[in-house]
């Protein structure tokens, strides 16, 4: 392909020298300079697309701000309304310490619908066609969206934690545990968002993503030790509740926030995320390559 492209101008133009004079090594050098693969190049292109996505978020901050504030408002309202139900007679700050990790996870998970929708818009509004016509890494559209979504989730998480500070949430663990508190939910949510990506690649309308994800996200968040401890559930639901990844993630974050050992739960969630990433990452990339 590339060879033809380089040769075409000379064959169209009779005044140039014979095409056989062109050194094949020179062509190879030109092709190599236009090389689109390679890890460094891929990361670089992903970063550019991610930065482009984030600029759009920053210049139109309504969606970012509202989703962060919505999760925060859920934290406040549920602390206000359920603290006395879950632990009667005790203060509100103890419940805030219990609820915040889950409220954060829930807020981030709700976001996966938006993120899938953004990716659908990337594919539909011509951005993807443009990227495909440009000499950049094929992975840039997917990777860039994933990276900018991670930044978006991190901003949200930070907002919730700062807001939670006012109602009594405190980090009592090591700096490493605190770092884990921020990274683990973002990684897990991104692996769920990849399901949304896979749906978006094959979707015919933006609503499809929310229709596929929403009915699952809600039961997952309700059936977890989020609002109430496991003792609050009926007996038949307890095994489901304790094995729900949202419960395990919330427990891991609670332990990391209060400086208790969390390694087992952290490993489980990391493996879950890895499995989801491998499965839906592969499916998404394959479907994306076959698109158009």
């Amino acid at each position, binding site marked *: 392909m590339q060879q033809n492209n380089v040769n075409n101008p000379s064959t169209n133009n009779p005044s140039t020298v014979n095409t056989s004079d062109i050194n094949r090594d020179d062509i190879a050098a030109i092709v190599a300079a236009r090389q689109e693969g390679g890890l460094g190049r891929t990361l670089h292109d992903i970063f550019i697309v991610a930065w482009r996505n984030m600029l759009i978020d920053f210049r139109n901050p*309504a*969606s970012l701000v*509202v*989703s962060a*504030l*919505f999760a925060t*408002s*859920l934290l*406040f*309202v*549920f602390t*206000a*309304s*359920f*603290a*006395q*139900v*879950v632990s*009667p007679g005790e203060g*509100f700050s103890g419940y805030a310490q219990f609820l915040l990790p889950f409220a954060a996870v829930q807020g981030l998970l709700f976001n996966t619908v938006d993120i899938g929708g953004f990716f659908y818009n990337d594919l539909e509004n011509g951005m993807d066609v443009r990227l495909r016509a440009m000499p950049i890494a094929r992975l840039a559209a997917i990777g860039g969206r994933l990276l900018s979504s991670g930044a978006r989730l991190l901003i949200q998480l930070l907002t919730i934690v700062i807001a939670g500070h006012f109602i009594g949430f405190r980090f009592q663990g090591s700096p490493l545990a605190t770092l884990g508190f921020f990274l683990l939910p973002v990684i897990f949510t991104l692996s769920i968002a990849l399901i949304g990506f896979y749906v978006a690649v094959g979707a015919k*309308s933006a*609503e*499809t993503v*929310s*229709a596929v994800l*929403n*009915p699952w996200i*809600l*039961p997952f*968040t*309700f*059936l977890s030790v989020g*609002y*109430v401890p496991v003792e*609050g*559930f*009926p007996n038949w*639901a307890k095994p489901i509740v304790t094995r729900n990844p949202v419960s395990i993630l919330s427990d891991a974050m609670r332990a990391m926030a209060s400086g208790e050992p969390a390694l087992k739960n952290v490993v489980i969630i990391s493996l879950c995320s890895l499995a989801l990433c491998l499965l839906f990452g592969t499916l998404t990339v394959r479907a994306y390559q076959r698109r158009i």
Partner: protein
Amino acid sequence: MAILAKQMIAGRQETGWRRAIEDSLLITGRNLIRLRRNPIIIVAIAIFPIVFLAGFWLVGQKLMAAQGVNYIQYLVPIINLQALFFSGLGSSLMFAKDIESGMMNRCRAMPISRVSTIAGLVAAYMVRALLATLILLLVAYVIFGFRAESNLLEWLGYLTLVVTFTATCITGYSILAIKLRRPDLVNAIAIIPYTPLLLLSNGFSPTENFPTWLQPIVRYQPVSVTCDALRSLVAGSDGSFPLFCYSFLWLIGLLALFGFLAVRAYKRLIV
């Protein structure tokens, strides 16, 4: 000649009640077709409210029973109001899309009644809200053991509040659509009233569980008052009539205010 001209003008008459109703029904039909062609609507109408009902019931029933609250009887009214509220939210999205896509401009350029665009939107989403209510009550009755002790009059009161609440939500949300005009912006912002109105109410948790300084707000805000009225109507208790009146007054007042603002904003809307 003059008579013929008058006859022709009369034939093209765009005002009058009959014309307004006919045009509104036409637009309603068009909106209903749009709703029906979108298969996702099943999720919004049937699955969403039931998932919320099941979720809160699972999370809360044991703890609420400790407080002496039969949670399923307590929960159904707020889940119902939430379904109506989301119907209003959905209407603002469709309205904003109509403004953006030029449908509103087309309606303005056509010899149809001015009110029909808004009335058609309200009527179509009213159908959606009533369907959601029906499905929710049926599922709550069959699966969750929800029972109503109401007589016919109390059911009429329940229905009246449901219809008024829906109309208030749709009208209120239409202001958002008219002012913002961009569907993506409406989509991002429309969820904001959900927390203070629906969650900061006595719908999910009794007022006494809130911090003391919040309790007055929680007790007297419109959603709480309507929830109280619905619960009392469902229980068929004696005090339901004054509660119905408080709620109805709140909702009609809000509806009048939102209606005034919406019509004013709509008149200024030149896309």
